[in-house]
């Protein structure tokens, strides 16, 4: 099985490569259309601003291939901003269109809490039996860094964090999975989650 991390110039790729490797998910980094096309699974990382990331994806010319991949029901994992990009639109500095694989929108965090939401927060389960979280326990901590969060349909919510509001942390629709936190920076719990993802897509 070939796992490919999409290289479009956004994100701390080295850490994701390392964490995938340590979780038994052997991934390669690529922006080559034929590599993306033939990937069994794709990982979309991302840090920074929504619009800039979408622009870079557009420039890469890879969006049609990514859409085909998801249309073919192949596994796809979006991490942090990479999860937010899965949704229809974002209101981060304007209004911007996303990939639209999941229904919902990206909006600013409540100002009743410190922004960014930065640090280790607990995962609460909304689908306790979901295989994606079978390797961890409810209330385990993972590392979050974000100023915007996803508002979407509860049916796709696997796990969430509480921070001023319900913050979707792990979402799943079919074989499209999103993680709002950074599994690659979340110690053993992060690796356990990447391992669960690997098992799920076998």
């Amino acid at each position: 099985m070939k796992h490919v991390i999409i290289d479009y110039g956004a994100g701390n790729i080295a850490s994701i490569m390392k964490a995938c490797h340590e979780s038994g998910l052997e991934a390669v980094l690529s922006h080559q259309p034929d590599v993306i096309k033939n990937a069994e699974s794709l990982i979309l990382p991302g840090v920074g601003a929504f619009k800039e990331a979408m622009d870079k994806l557009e420039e890469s010319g890879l969006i049609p291939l990514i859409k085909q991949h998801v249309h073919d029901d192949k596994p796809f994992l979006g991490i942090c901003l990479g999860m937010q990009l899965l949704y229809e639109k974002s209101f981060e500095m304007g209004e911007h269109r996303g990939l639209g694989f999941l229904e919902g929108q990206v909006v600013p965090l409540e100002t009743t809490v410190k922004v960014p939401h930065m640090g280790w927060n607990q995962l609460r389960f909304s689908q306790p039996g979901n295989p994606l979280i079978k390797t961890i326990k409810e209330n385990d901590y993972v590392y979050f860094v974000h100023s915007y969060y996803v508002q979407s349909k509860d049916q796709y919510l696997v796990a969430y964090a509480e921070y001023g509001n319900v913050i979707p942390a792990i979402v799943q629709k079919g074989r499209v999975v999103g993680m709002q936190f950074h599994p690659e920076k979340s110690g053993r719990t992060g690796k356990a989650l990447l391992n669960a993802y690997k098992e799920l897509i076998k």
Partner: protein
Amino acid sequence: MLARRIIPCLDVKDGRVVKGKQFTALEDVDAPERLSAFYDQEGADELVFYDITASHEARKTSLEFVEKVAQTISIPFTVGGGVNTLEDFTTVLRKGADKVSINTGAVLNPALIEAAANKFGRQCVVLSIDAKYNGESYDVYLHGGRTKTNLDAIEWAQKGVALGAGEIVINSMDTDGVKTGFNLDLVKKVCEAVNVPVIASGGAGKIADFLSLAKSTGADGMLAASVFHYQEISIKELKIALSAIGIPIRLEELNNGIKL
């Protein structure tokens, strides 16, 4: 619940970790990546590295250690020291750091905060402030505490956040290195003044110092160096002690059912 973070700070000079007692009398402690791996296993929530001589000697941070650390640990880390330009940000982030800390460079050129926040996102921009009490308020110092400015530390923190800083590290020069406890007054004032995470630094000597900081201030992170490097305080014991008084703390080992 968002956990309070325990953050060992590693001062780096010539690729080695050192800890200056009030910024003088340097002693070698260990290699950055070795200490980093140790702290990751011990349960540190994050690490901070400063190249403490960078500003003073006007040279760029020697960054080889950043890549080594990134390849070693699975928790986030910040790198600072001698960061004066957007290119410095790019270099540090490309080598695998999660956040970049700016201090002197931000005071001399506040626009750098805004430019970096716009380019990399405010979550990458940590404003580090060295502050010293003048009898009435706190002054900002530069160059590792060697140069006094006319800036008020609280006002500077607010301005830094308005410009785009996503986190503040507030280091009390009055308590730094003397191990008599954090400067609770200063930390409280900064926490009240800004709506971003605040990391308290300077003064940790014993576990009780962390407990009073956590109880009486809103500090999100608690940073210390020598008490961890010389293993005067065990991070595991510290985290258990904090958890025992009801402070939200990440205890990965406990949650995973492994007895400490």
